[in-house]
């Protein structure tokens, strides 16, 4: 690592801030992204249950929608604070990135601010509204949450896509941004592919996450109408999203092949430019930079990159780029492994969705076997891992750049040598936070089961302090 200027006064505690800044950003993003699918897609599933409750007078669906909205409030609240940390981190960890590129990079975020505002307001209205609005108007207050979730995803991913495919700015000789085209910044070339991939992922991952909880409950023998609905609504959404995601992901991969050749070379583990490149499953680059291990499927990587030219498609290898403008060997191995994990898990989820879909077509019912439920109960974790792996491919594959072709990560980082203190504090707090979230959601679920009615007191937006008579009254009504 090159020596970096360290601030005066911090010498005792000072270390090279770059790896700590990267580690912290990776950790906090990886944590926040787990909550994102819930924030984006849960409202939609809740509305499906809500719709069914009103249309068919289904009391179980109503109960499900009410409880989901309370869980949603907890995950949204935690997502909001972890998102706030990211906002601060842009400045605290990457001040030189923000100082140089804020005028362009900030634009998608100002749009996202709008959606975040809408989401915060309507989530409060929806949860407050259960007992206070007539059913249909109440249903419609939930729709802006869904719209805001989609809009927010599209704008935040626009910022990330811009880092991969920077556009819409003019630099002067000193490298300062002197003119900006906001529309080109937002609608950069990578945006449609990346944004649709993440949006579908939000529904896919959110659906499998929620369904897996009810799959576990069904395995434990709770197989009533209520739990069936709790499984079917999210699982159906995820099962529809999975094949869509295969197509969207494939299109994105081909775009990366054409536009981000270093990332693509890392994904496909291609040290030297060649045609008839094999698809290497697992495997790694050794210290000589040659592929070792893994299972090679001849010609497949070339064929997938451009089916029109088949196995004669040439893939640019890592050797076509200067060593300091492409990922290091360790980074290449990380990208390739992450890619295999994402595609592998995605394929398994696809097979699970096919199983479900075919059974449904033949029998008009979900598969009854225990094996299916066991697989479904693992699908939530698998989907989260696939999403994390996908982001690893995007981010590590862009190295050494933070703004591809324009700014390196090490030139973007803070010079503050005390970053490691924050890193340790953040890790400790997030671990405690994660434990608490799980505990709280479980406690809520247990309490719901005991009371078997609508409990108002435990959501961060819900009305507080139901008096004893009120609680009894509520129990009386719902019972």
């Amino acid at each position: 690592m090159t020596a970096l200027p360290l601030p005066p006064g911090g010498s005792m505690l000072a270390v090279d801030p770059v790896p700590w800044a990267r580690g912290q950003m990776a950790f906090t993003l990886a944590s926040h992204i787990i909550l994102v699918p819930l924030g984006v897609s849960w409202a939609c599933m809740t509305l499906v249950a809500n719709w069914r409750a009103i249309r068919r007078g289904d009391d179980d669906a109503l109960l499900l929608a009410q409880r989901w909205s309370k869980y949603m409030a907890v995950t949204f609240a935690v997502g909001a604070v972890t998102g706030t940390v990211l906002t601060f981190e842009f400045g605290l960890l990457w001040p030189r990135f923000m100082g140089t590129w804020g005028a362009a990079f900030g634009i998608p975020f100002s749009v996202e601010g709008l959606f975040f505002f809408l989401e915060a307001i309507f989530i409060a209205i929806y949860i407050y509204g259960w007992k206070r609005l007539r059913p249909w108007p109440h249903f419609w207050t939930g729709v802006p949450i869904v719209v805001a979730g989609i809009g927010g995803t599209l704008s935040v991913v626009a910022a990330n896509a811009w880092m991969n495919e920077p556009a819409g700015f003019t630099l002067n000789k000193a490298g300062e941004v002197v003119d900006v085209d906001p529309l080109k910044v937002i609608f950069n070339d990578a945006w449609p592919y990346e944004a649709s991939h993440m949006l579908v992922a939000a529904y896919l991952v959110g659906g499998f996450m929620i369904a897996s909880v009810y799959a576990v409950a069904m395995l434990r023998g709770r197989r009533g109408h209520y739990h069936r609905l709790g499984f079917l609504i999210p699982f159906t959404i995820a099962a529809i999203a999975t094949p869509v995601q295969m197509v969207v992901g494939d299109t994105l991969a081909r775009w990366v092949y054409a536009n981000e050749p270093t990332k693509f070379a890392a994904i496909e583990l291609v040290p030297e430019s060649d045609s008839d490149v094999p698809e290497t499953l697992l495997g790694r680059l050794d210290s000589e930079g040659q592929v070792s291990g893994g299972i090679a499927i001849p010609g497949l990587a070339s064929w997938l990159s451009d089916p029109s030219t088949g196995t004669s498609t040439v893939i640019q290898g890592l050797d076509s780029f200067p060593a300091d403008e492409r990922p290091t060997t360790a980074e290449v191995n990380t990208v390739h492994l992450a890619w295999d994990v994402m595609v592998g898990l995605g394929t398994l989820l696809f097979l699970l969705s096919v199983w479900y879909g075919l059974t449904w077509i033949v029998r008009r019912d979900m598969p009854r076997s225990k094996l299916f439920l066991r697989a479904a109960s693992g699908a939530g974790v698998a989907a989260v891992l696939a999403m994390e792996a996908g982001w690893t491919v995007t981010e590590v594959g862009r190295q050494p750049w933070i703004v591809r072709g324009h700014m390196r990560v090490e030139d973007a980082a803070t010079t503050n040598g005390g970053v490691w203190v924050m890193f340790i504090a953040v890790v400790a707090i997030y671990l405690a936070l994660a434990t608490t979230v799980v505990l709280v959601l479980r406690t809520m679920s247990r309490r719901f089961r005991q009371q078997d009615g609508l409990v108002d007191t435990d959501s961060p937006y819900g009305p507080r302090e139901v008096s004893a008579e009120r609680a009894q009254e509520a129990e009386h009504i719902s019972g």
Partner: protein
Amino acid sequence: MDDAVAVVLFVAVTTYAVFGGADFGAGFWDLVAGGAARGAAPRALVDHAIGPVWEANHVWLIFALVVLWTAFPEAFASITLTAFVPLMLVALGIVLRGASFAFRKSLFRTSQRRAFGAIFAFSSVLVPYGMGAVAGAIASGRVPAGGEAGDPWSSWINPTSVVGGVLAVTVGAYLAAVYLISDARRLADDAMVDYFRRRAIAAAIIAGPVALLGIVVLRSDARYLFDGLASRALPLVLLSSLCGIGSLVLLLRRSPRGARLLAMGAVASIIWAWGVAQWPYILPTSLEVAAAAAPQATLITVLVVFGVATVVILPSLGLLYFLDQRSLLPAEGLDALPPSRGSASLP
């Protein structure tokens, strides 16, 4: 154009101070409410009052940060490089506070509830102090221009920053106490009305002199700001003092509704006085607003977004307000009491 965006930035900061600041202040009263038995009633009211709008209030902070880094990226880089330590504490404090607040009402045993409550209350003081200290660092010219780092410690441990931090905590506590009187009145809880009325008066009596003392400190520590406050921003300083005194009088005369408006006016006008006093600098006295501003097209985008926000967000907040008011109908029951601050954020 850059002037207009600077105004937008200050609108966001002011709104956050007036609404979000009171959320922190409520946490302060939670902290000093005493033991579990004695503090039960005020704590319940605080819980109740922060209500469903804490998230919406919090969004103003995000909005202010996004406007700052998009429209004035150089200033943002300088501030985050210089004030790394207090901003880090603020960020961590916000996580702890938001999370413990969200979880506290979940169904835990009393001991767990108490632990979360303590975290909530402690971070409610830490966060506004940190923000006030950063404001002090900026106002006293300790943040250099050019995306450079100032001193990592003395930039925020200095007389102006201490004044800023203490002022932020006391002003938040004052606003919260004034708002909580109205909440208690709506609950027809006379004991709590009196409880928070006494505390609001005490907070006002402390916040006033702290502000005055602050001006004396600025005279030696932040001369440019002091000169601005004593000249072009003087009308705002006077307006703030009048509002403050007026709200104190109304509190003594048991007229909380007017007191609430005047308290908000006092806080808003002192923040605007800060802005006017350091004009035309965004970082006194090294970086002017015009020099720090992003290219024209970016500024226009920020203004358009702000325009859309006023068209879309205000009616939404209005809907929240309307529903809250409806829930006040006797038949709806008391558990549906609305957050007073959701309503107050309407123009």
